[in-house]
């Protein structure tokens, strides 16, 4: 009887705990829901206000885009790479069997070569190491020669292979996806590097690779087994994004669409970091930019650029005159203001299976010429050219210097669709 009572009490206690837990969860959810509703309301309000908004002229977008490409890499990336590298090298020097490599992973739309080159520029001066960087900015035109060109470029000889003493030479391959092409003879470079890394432990290796290619290499040649240290570039936070884009935003005089000037001090800031934000609109904007870009610098930069609008406003006096003297019509003076509306991700257009194959191949390689793309798909160049043309018109591809790349604006939705269609597995960045 007593045991039954005890069981009953325990049951009631458990139930009460569960109810408490549920109440806590609801309490926790309510403020979030409230803020979400507010954000939606702000979005709707902004949409209503967007009636007279036009995008920036293409020439201006091109100029700004060029300036963004010239921006130094975000400080967060620089600090993260440098500290990881120092840590991995220290471990390698201290321990006999420690791994002699570090892999930096990033999304296929991030400029990995640039990120690694810039991050290493300071590091070299601080640590007095000799750095040997693979200087390729593009894949060798003949993919069959990748292996021999790797050998030639990095100057590895048989003597290097035999050397057992740990040297202060840092071997850097900024973008591993340049060392392969998805075709029968296009994987020789990767297999060669794999062997080299295993046999040559006298030098430390820093390798940059895009996440999709890394996933592919892990499946086809278990590359992860050769690299103990892998590190993904950290996502950028709202303030970091703002600081990174500040040099460009100083070039333009604009208001946030909610009405506050970018240079004026605003009120009602959400946190105590008032010195970081000029207005609550600015804070809202970068918070949303952080969320929708998932902290990827290239996606955020492109979305930031595309959220500039030109607002046409009639002069207040002219407005009044218009109302009073409708008979005496004269052309009203129109003022053009640049405003920054809240950023939005564009919807991915409906794609065919063949288009998915093309987009996946581009993500896998980072960038490709049309001939390389055709080779990686095992299709004739003409067929691929037609499909690429369609994708370019849809704005999914960028075409610069004869090379095709994914458009960062669509990257996150494309990745989601590729996961849902079994091209990629969940973990890919």
């Amino acid at each position, binding site marked *: 009887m007593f045991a039954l009572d005890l069981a009953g009490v325990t049951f009631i206690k458990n139930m009460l705990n569960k109810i408490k837990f549920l109440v806590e969860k609801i309490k926790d959810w309510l403020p979030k829901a409230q803020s979400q509703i507010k954000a939606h309301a702000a979005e709707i309000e902004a949409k209503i206000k967007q009636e007279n908004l036009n995008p920036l002229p293409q020439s201006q977008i091109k100029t700004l885009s060029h300036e963004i490409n010239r921006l130094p890499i975000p400080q967060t990336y620089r600090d993260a790479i440098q500290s990881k590298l120092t840590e991995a090298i220290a471990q390698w020097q201290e321990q006999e069997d420690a791994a002699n490599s570090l892999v930096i992973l990033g999304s296929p739309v991030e400029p990995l070569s640039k990120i690694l080159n810039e991050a290493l520029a300071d590091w070299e001066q601080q640590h007095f190491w000799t750095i040997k960087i693979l200087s390729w900015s593009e894949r060798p035109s003949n993919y069959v020669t990748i292996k021999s060109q790797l050998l030639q470029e990095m100057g590895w000889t048989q003597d290097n292979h035999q050397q057992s003493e740990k040297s202060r030479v840092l071997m850097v391959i900024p973008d591993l996806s340049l060392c392969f092409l*998805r*075709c*029968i003879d*296009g*994987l020789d470079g990767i297999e060669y590097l794999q062997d080299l890394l295993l046999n040559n432990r006298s030098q430390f290796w820093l390798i940059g690779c895009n996440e999709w290619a890394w996933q*592919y290499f892990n*499946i*086809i040649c278990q590359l992860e087994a050769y690299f103990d240290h892998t590190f993904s570039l950290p996502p950028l936070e709202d303030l970091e994004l703002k600081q990174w884009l500040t040099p460009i935003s100083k070039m333009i005089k604009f208001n946030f669409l909610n009405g506050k000037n970018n240079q004026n001090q605003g009120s009602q800031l959400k946190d105590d970091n008032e010195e970081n934000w000029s207005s609550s609109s600015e804070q809202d904007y970068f918070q949303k930019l952080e969320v929708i870009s998932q902290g990827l610098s290239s996606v955020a930069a492109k979305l930031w650029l595309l959220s500039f609008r030109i607002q046409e406003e009639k002069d207040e006096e002219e407005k009044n005159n218009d109302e009073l003297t409708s008979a005496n019509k004269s052309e009203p003076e129109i003022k053009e203001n640049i405003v920054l509306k809240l950023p939005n991700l564009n919807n991915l257009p409906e794609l065919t*299976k063949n288009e998915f*194959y093309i987009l*996946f*191949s581009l993500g896998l390689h980072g960038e490709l010429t049309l001939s390389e793309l055709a080779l*990686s*798909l*095992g299709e004739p160049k003409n067929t691929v050219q037609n499909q690429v043309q369609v994708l370019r018109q849809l704005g999914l591809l960028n075409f610069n210097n004869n090379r095709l790349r994914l458009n960062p604006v669509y990257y996150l939705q494309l990745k989601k*669709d590729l996961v*849902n*269609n*079994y*091209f990629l*597995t969940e973990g890919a960045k």
Partner: protein
Amino acid sequence: MFNFFPWVPLIYTFAQVETEAVNKASELITEITIWKVAQAVLIIAITYGTLWSIEKLINWLSEKVSLKNRLIVRESLPFLRAFLLGLATVLFLNLFLNLSPNNVLALTGTAAVALGFAFKDYASSLIAGIVALFEAPYQVGDRVKIGDYYGEIISYGLRGILIQTPDDDIVTIPHNKIWTESISNANKGNVEAQTVVDFYLAHTVNIEQVTQILYRVAYTSKYTQLKHPILVVMDEKPWGTLFKLRCYPIDARDEFVYKTDLIKRAKQAFAKYNISYPVLPIGLSKDYE
């Protein structure tokens, strides 16, 4: 002299049973009115329309959703169809029949006998269709081989399934084949189905080299689903060596273009590295033909 009297109660009893049967039959069938007929026509029209719309909607939706959800959407169609038809049949019977427990029993008995004689195969297919819904030897979207036919199941009807063959022919196969025939299902509810490609090469080829080429062919095909294992196995023939490449396409629908892609690129590589094909002895080649 024939004594008639002992038979009188028996004849009376027979007459009584007959009258009762006639009465019962009239009890089973309710009064048929114009309104009821109109209702029946309406039920048939609504059911037909709904079935047609649902089929169109689900087929459309299954092509719109991602590969991950395609089969889930398609598999719902047979269940929805069975439910709708069942509901319509009950409503229809309820209009014209008094569905008391006794009547239902009598009706099913009569129907069973009638069906047993007249529509034996049809009834067998219907029942097999219902069994197959739950046993699931095949589902919409599966790639199956039943008898001489291989292809993707594109429709799951009440009586049978429709298979789309690689030559784009549509073949109807009754469900009652599941009682007697063996059914080979290549993907069983998954979007991937293993593809096996045979390569016949000369005995003298470098096995290591051929194996590496075949693995590379699979790894570098745009169609390959890399999360599934890729395997090269060998078999020996008197006139050559058989290499079998086993791998999976991302989408089972691409099975034949995938196979073509693998063969095309493997042959290009074999030509590049001078890998020779077997030459059949004259007698054997005739047999082989």
